[in-house]
């Protein structure tokens, strides 16, 4: 049930009608039924993964709560009418903490174990075969849709319960809804349990026409990004990257720019649809993008791009890892030998390298994604390490680091670095192709490559480029307004009705007439 098929719209419409007709206390159950139907429409067999993850995290959550209660009871116990001493309480707490940690560890192993088994066994086996000259048969598994997303989401719940950030859910079906909530199961965002609760996943919702209208507008905005811009830009990207021919020069640059457009519009457009659908049902979801191409550094980029993944990595890997005893000791050693700055920065750099290694392999079981992750991690690590020197250089060259001009330079620099990272993404034909493509960025520049007659060889006509240009301008203006804190939907809602309707109808007509028609109609992140 793709977001652009008739079935999806009928599904939302019927679901919405039933949702607001049933007694409010059953609304969450209707969402669960819709989620199960939605998931099973792709593959009934893959539902086992949903049940598996839900069961693990549900049991883990209950166990953690029980252990916490038992610990409190044990600490309050009196022996011969004498309360326990502080030391005795400490011992008891340590014992229960070890047990609780074990529960979290087992849940992680079971959860991530399934993910690793299904997504990474083939990669591991093929590399073992290549390195050691073995001929182990590469197993193939049916990959449940959204496996990465709901596994990460489920494990975040377990860790949040452990850390006391949220209470354990005592209703298995509500837990299943949290894991399988249908708008976001295919491509995120990776939600947090307490955010979902606060966002109204299990709450009772009254019919609100304005909220439904806003949700529909958000869906329309997502469709505009996907159909008019992403699919169109993807035509050139596919034409260039699906062939072993390396064009070089302006074509390579244009390919990267088009990929930037395609990836951002596709992913953020899909997320807009997800958030819009959730809004229709009264559920508020976390934003997953915040004008990422306005970032002034790679670190900032990852706080604006796929925000939920970055936040997950930060909360559940970066902080725990950088605060371990080993990292503390490393920090002390670093301060002793390299000074205060490097002592502080070394554990942070290692933590960044670790999380971006994981981000890389999260994207796919291929070496190019590992390289992609390490590339980003290295830039962030080196930037952190050289931060004091950057400040000195700015001072030396009399550059005002807070000036608008310098910010623009930083934005352009970051955009270039991000685009270089995308080379890994587009190198589906192999690393050799990726290297040749990268080298092609520095040679074979001919102005004739910019002629429309030449550019049309890549599947896009002159008006396609014009549509992309105008579309990107619209996106840029909207992003600029959002960056300045303007709530665009609210401000449009305050405009006269005639103007509002011109805008809404205008976008509808653009989607209908200018939406690209071709084979690139699936969402890129739907296979994670």
């Amino acid at each position, binding site marked *: 049930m793709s977001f652009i098929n008739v079935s999806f719209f009928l599904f939302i419409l019927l679901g919405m009608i039933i949702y607001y007709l049933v007694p409010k206390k059953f609304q969450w159950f209707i969402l669960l039924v819709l989620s199960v139907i939605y998931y099973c429409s792709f593959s009934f067999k893959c539902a086992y993964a949903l049940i598996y993850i839900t069961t693990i995290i549900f049991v883990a959550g209950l166990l953690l709560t029980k252990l916490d209660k038992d610990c409190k009871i044990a600490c309050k116990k009196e022996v011969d009418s004498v309360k326990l001493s502080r030391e005795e309480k400490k011992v008891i707490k340590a014992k229960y903490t070890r047990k609780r940690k074990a529960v979290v560890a087992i849940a992680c192993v079971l959860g991530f174990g399934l993910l690793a088994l299904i997504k990474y066994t083939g990669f591991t086996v093929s590399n073992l075969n290549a390195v050691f000259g073995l001929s182990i048969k590469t197993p193939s598994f049916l990959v449940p849709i959204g496996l990465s997303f709901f596994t990460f989401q489920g494990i975040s719940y377990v860790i949040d319960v452990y850390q006391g950030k949220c209470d354990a859910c005592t209703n298995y079906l509500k837990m299943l809804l949290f894991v399988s909530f249908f708008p976001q199961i295919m491509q995120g965002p990776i939600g947090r349990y307490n955010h979902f609760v606060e966002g109204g996943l299990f709450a009772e919702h009254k019919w609100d026409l304005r909220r439904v209208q806003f949700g529909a507008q958000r869906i329309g905005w997502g469709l505009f990004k996907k159909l008019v811009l992403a699919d169109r830009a993807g035509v050139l990207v596919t034409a260039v990257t699906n062939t072993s021919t390396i064009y070089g020069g302006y074509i390579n640059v244009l390919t990267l720019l088009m990929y930037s457009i395609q990836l951002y519009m596709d992913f953020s457009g899909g997320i807009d649809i997800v958030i819009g659908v959730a809004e229709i049902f009264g559920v508020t979801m976390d934003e997953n993008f915040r004008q990422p191409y306005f970032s002034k550094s790679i670190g900032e980029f990852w706080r604006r791009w796929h925000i939920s993944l970055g936040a997950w990595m930060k909360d559940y890997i970066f902080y725990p890892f950088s605060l371990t005893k080993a990292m503390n000791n490393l920090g002390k050693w670093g301060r002793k030998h390299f000074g205060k700055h490097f002592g502080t920065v070394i554990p942070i750099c290692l933590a960044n390298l670790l999380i971006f290694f994981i981000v890389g392999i999260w994207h796919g079981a291929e070496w190019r994604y590992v390289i992609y992750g390490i590339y980003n991690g290295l830039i962030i690590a080196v930037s952190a390490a050289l931060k004091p020197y950057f400040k000195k250089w700015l001072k030396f060259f009399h550059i005002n680091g807070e000036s608008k001009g310098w910010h623009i330079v930083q934005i352009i620099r970051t955009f270039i670095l991000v685009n270089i990272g995308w080379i890994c993404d587009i190198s589906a034909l192999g690393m050799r192709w990726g290297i040749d493509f990268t080298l092609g960025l520095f040679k074979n520049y001919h102005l004739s490559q910019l002629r429309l007659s030449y550019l049309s060889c890549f599947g896009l006509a002159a008006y396609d480029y014009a549509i992309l240009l105008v579309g990107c301008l619209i996106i840029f203006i909207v992003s600029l307004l959002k960056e300045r804190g303007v709530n665009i939907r609210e401000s449009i809602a305050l405009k006269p009705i005639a103007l509002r309707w011109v805008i809404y109808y205008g976008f509808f007509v653009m989607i209908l007439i200018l939406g690209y028609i071709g*084979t690139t109609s699936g969402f890129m992140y739907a296979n994670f």
Partner: protein
Amino acid sequence: MKVSNESNKLDEPKINKKRNKKSHIKEYAYLKSVLFIVGLIIIIAACDFVFAKEGYVYDILQVLHQGYEVDADGNISEDISSETSGFDTIILGASHGRSAIDPDKIDSVLGTNTLNVCIPGETVKDSYYLLLEAAKSNQIKNLILDVDYQYYLGNQDEGYFEEAFIYNQLSWTSYVKYKYIIDNMNKLDFRNAISKRDVYRHSLCDIKGNIAHRFSKAYLDANIYKLAVEDCGGPYEGKGFFYRLQTDCFDSNFMDSDAFSYDTKVSDVSRKYFEKIKDFCDENGINLICVTSPITPSSYDILHIDEIHVTMSDFFNDYGVTYIDYNKASFDVLYRCDSDFVDAEGHMCGELAVRYSALLANNLSELKNNKDISLILNEVYGGVN
């Protein structure tokens, strides 16, 4: 107490006024929403009117709905009366069928009223929905299904955007359109479902042409004689048949790529829709006969026609459906050579089509008179089956 009661009484009208105002605002909001949706429908209709380049599919569907066809001058034949129940025989298939089977030849032998609804690119799925559409406004008694192996073997995709090119032209008043939506909702792009987006042309020239076309008499009368039809290859002879003219530039490259990787199995999608066609025919007392019009002789070996013949014969035998493969027709029964075709793929020229149609009509007549099919096949294939 007395004072507060009085003050409550004074507040009541104010409260009621506020309540009424709120409910008016709510009703106004819903009214706006309804008007907005109506506006959307109008905009879609306007976009279809301006951008959709309607062509042969629309025209032949109009003839099908009418149950009759106007002549070249736009006049309705005197034979058409209020008692006429439209066409009783339809021919379904793709481009091969449109240039190969002349309905007039069928009618002159069988006394039927045949319409050739073969459309270039028509898949087995399309044939099913066209059959439903035909049966809606005509009392169909016979269905001749022209079987082009390209739509049965190899990879038959569903859900690609252009697939809905025939569905797009069905009327919103037709139940078949809604049935298509429901049957294909998991594959149908929403843009295709609500508009004729597949045939939109945006250039100013096209827009002018589209609008002018819609106001032309030929369009309004569905007078295909006067309408420009792409890739027809020759003059329109009526009832869906185009008399392809022989050409000096024989297209030897126009070959289906799947032909070289031929399968021994009919694709699941084609099988599914053929079953639906057969079931519909059985339920509605429609005689179903499947034929394969002959293709260019020099292509036989390249396309493994012998093997394809076995696959398709076995396929139709499994369903107990009469199937005549005229590729196997002996050259004594139906002489043909490459110059009788415009391309290697097998689009027949008019001259051969007339002879082939006569042979087909004769065989259909024999079947109607309960002649054994194996005898007919023996005669057609020249004793080699």
